[in-house]
């Protein structure tokens, strides 16, 4: 039991990081993590120790996040894009992605692309593990990743995609 709690505890920094990247709001993110931890601990009886605790926690967090989004949409609340804090941007250099611009670009991605992109790039999960967390086939995950990255490239104005004629 305490072994389970130790495993959960070890995931807290990653959950906070992921939640912050998803919500772009420190309080909302920690609320989300707290709700996820409470739910996970209350339902630990349902956890089958065959899979990693981490994947289970991410699944819970994402479900809660989607529910809150759905609920707030029903209530007609708006998300304030202006409230996104400005990040210090390193002097623009050719080929460098301006971080603030990137942050804003990520925010405009559809949730299904954003959640996939962050699981892979930020949390470094294996494709299959991320696909399982999101409950989608591997191919769907990869196409969401591809679309997310292409969109970010357009939004941040990084050099146009090279033509990959020689490779398929």
């Amino acid at each position: 039991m305490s072994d389970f709690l130790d495993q959960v505890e070890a995931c807290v920094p990653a959950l906070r990081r992921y939640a912050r990247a998803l919500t772009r709001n420190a309080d909302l993110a920690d609320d989300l993590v707290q709700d996820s931890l409470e739910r996970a601990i209350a339902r630990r009886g349902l956890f089958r120790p065959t899979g990693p605790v981490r994947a289970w926690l991410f699944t819970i967090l994402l479900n809660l996040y989607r529910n809150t989004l759905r609920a707030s949409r029903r209530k007609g609340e708006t998300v304030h894009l202006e409230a996104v804090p400005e990040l210090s941007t390193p002097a623009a250099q050719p080929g460098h992605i301006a971080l603030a611009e990137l942050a804003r670009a990520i925010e405009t991605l559809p949730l299904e692309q954003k959640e996939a992109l962050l699981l892979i790039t930020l949390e470094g999960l294996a494709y299959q593990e991320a696909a399982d967390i999101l409950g989608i086939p591997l191919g769907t995950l990869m196409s969401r990743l591809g679309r997310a990255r292409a969109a970010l490239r357009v939004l941040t104005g990084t050099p146009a995609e090279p033509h990959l004629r020689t490779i398929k």
Partner: protein
Amino acid sequence: MTQITRDTLMAYADGQLDAAARAAVDALLAANPDAALEVALLQRQGDAIRTLFWPVGAEPVPPRLRVRRIAAETRQHRRRSWGWAVAAVLLVTIGLGAGWLARPLLDARPPSATLIADAVNAHIVYVAENRHAVEVGSTDSEHLSSWLSNRLDTDLGMPDLSAEGFTLVGGRLLPGAPNAGGRAAQLMYESPDKQRVTIYVTAALPDGQPAYQFASYDGAGAFYWANARITCTVVGTLPEAQMKAVAGAVYSQLTEGDVSTGRSYRG
């Protein structure tokens, strides 16, 4: 040339390929600057995303996200929810049992009588338990102390009874008398020959007056005192002299630093 898709390049950039597939892509990249640029862009994107958000994971975790704290609170909620049914049965049992046992005390109905009866009943219920004698074991005594202190809203140290031959088994939170904060902490100690004593602590009664009482029920001795901060009942089935020694040690340790205790214990 081997066919390498854009998905493969992405998997390569994300570090998802095994060694053999990686080597194949390496070979391709060496010969194909366009593909190499594509990979570099993907990797730069990933680096930028990590630069943005990775530091959040290194921030200190706020107390409300401490897993053990959440676990302790969840346990309580759960107990509270199914507790009503058990409470009904327990209340009847305790009511009948304590009422009968504590008849001489309850006749006058001072608040201390309720507390002592609760303490004796909690003692009888939990010293009989083996695996579930306590909720939090002494191995986690720091957590036990801070948890119970928070719940009772007073600073509660774990008395050290090693001089009396008793070691801490652990403790639990119990529902308590409404006029003493509604909650009680029970600490359990055990001697090498498996004799057990319990200490039942609640927040102070509304009057906060110092009080002292020794009561005995069916062979269980209960030593009760109250001060402006807490009420405490030490319960055990030890011989009277030993009981007093234990109670005295508990008293002096739990009232340490309290200036308003009025007088010191003389057992």
